[in-house]
């Protein structure tokens, strides 16, 4: 469904990605794990067109989308829920959701209205607070809103950047369970998560990103069992591994 081939990208003079190649198959949950600043978020930003790739190609649904602009990519079916939620705080919850459907044509008005109801059923809290300003929601509710806003564009591929950042562990767990449910409904997910263990538990496959490169890839099971991954990202002490 999505395939990146030797993507380079930079912020000004700082090269952030060096030859990233990865793919996400239809119906998969794929996760990118790695330290802060490794290039995970940049990878998502390149895919959603916010940053231009310096070289390399991006293919989505058998089309070369490398030079597409963000709006066109949203219409093609890529939703990117950014790190830190980035909801529109001084607009209402419902306005935020409606803006999520901004890229869809007017002719889908009825469909959009029923999708809005579907999001309210999925997240009843958002329905309760639909007339409130989005900025007044709690962190967990804001993350729900950011996800629901992304879903309002009817994506095929959902990209989540650090969704559990700043959430209480129980809320983060509920959120990831919701992501699993979305996959069962047919959505493909590319998940960036600082909580590597939680991400690998729900993912099918994973990539390990270090200083702008992919250093390791494999099934989630293999990565969870990999001693290097355990040492660097799953918080196991050296001692445990050698014992």
């Amino acid at each position, binding site marked *: 469904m999505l395939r990146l081939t030797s993507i380079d990208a930079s912020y000004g003079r700082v090269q952030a990605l060096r030859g990233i190649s990865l793919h996400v198959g239809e119906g998969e949950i794929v996760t990118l794990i790695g330290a802060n600043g490794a290039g995970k978020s940049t990878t998502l930003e390149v895919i959603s067109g916010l940053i231009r790739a310096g070289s390399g190609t991006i293919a989505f649904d058998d089309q070369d989308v490398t030079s597409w602009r963000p*709006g066109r990519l949203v219409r093609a079916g890529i939703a990117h829920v*950014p790190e830190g939620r980035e909801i*529109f705080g001084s607009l209402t919850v419902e306005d935020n959701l409606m*803006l999520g459907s*901004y890229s869809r044509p007017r002719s889908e008005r009825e469909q959009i209205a029923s999708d809005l109801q579907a999001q309210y059923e999925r997240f009843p809290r958002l329905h309760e607070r639909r007339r409130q300003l989005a900025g007044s929601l709690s962190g967990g509710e804001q993350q729900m809103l950011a996800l629901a806003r992304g879903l309002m564009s009817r994506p095929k591929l959902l990209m989540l950047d650090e969704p559990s950042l700043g959430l209480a562990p129980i809320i983060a767990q509920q959120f990831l369970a919701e992501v699993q449910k979305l996959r069962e409904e047919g959505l493909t997910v590319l998940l960036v998560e600082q909580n590597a263990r939680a991400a690998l538990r729900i993912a099918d496959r994973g990539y390990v990103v270090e200083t702008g490169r992919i250093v390791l890839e494999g099934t989630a099971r293999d990565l969870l069992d990999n001693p290097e991954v355990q040492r660097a990202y799953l918080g196991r002490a050296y001692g445990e591994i050698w014992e």
Partner: protein
Amino acid sequence: MTAVQVWQFFLSGLTTGGTYALIALGFSLVYNATGVINFAQGEFVMLGGMITATAIAAWGLPLWLAALIAVAITTVVGLVLDRAAIRPARHSSVVVLIIITVGASIFIRGLASIIWGPNERPLPAFSGEAPIVIFGATITAQSLWVLGATLVTALIMWAIFEYTIVGKAMRACAINPHAAQLCGIELSRMVSWSFALAAAVGAIAGIVLAPITMAQYNVGTMLGLKGFCAAILGGLGNGLGGILGGLVLGVLEALGAGLVSSQYKDAIAFIVLIIVLLIRPSGLLGREGGDP
């Protein structure tokens, strides 16, 4: 100095203030979309008045049609300004873009002086010259047109931003351009919208003001600066603040000119500007940050 005189100054101040309010609204529209102070805003006002006056005097059109044409042409000028001058430089810093608008303002004024020459263009009052007496003070019917146009335009703008998806998308861009793009909102299109609306609002101000002050190729400079002062006074980027700032500034000017000396009329706006920047840089209704 009698109370009736003060009341008189207050009413005439409200009239000028209404125009400042509309100009301030134009500044806020572009500022929210781009972070740029569009110093060509005053030229939109000039164009509104000049085109209407020409359309009536030279082409013999009725007022409503002339006004419509003036708003349409000015809106196109606003769009061209965006496409030809702002968009090619959109990756430059805000300061560069502001200087571009200063250049565009000089360019439009120069073009206007070539097209229309240096003479003032009179525009007849919309509904006669008969004065209206309100509690002892007299105002012209045209003053009511100015205040009415301000009110109606402000209401339309409010409705656009509160109830239409495009208006909300423009607000979303001002709040968080990054997230707006991820919703599929094209920033460049929103910037075009903001220039178009700002130009239309400016033209409306110019049209209703022209019968009072006469239209001339160079009226845009001072009106633009006054509108800018009003926008700062009300809180840059805050629509309601701009309206309030315009009205307050107009009244202060009229009172200052009447009670102190009419020599200082133009200076008052700038004294207000300096005081606001020193004491409350975010303006009367402004908050920290650019959120509308």
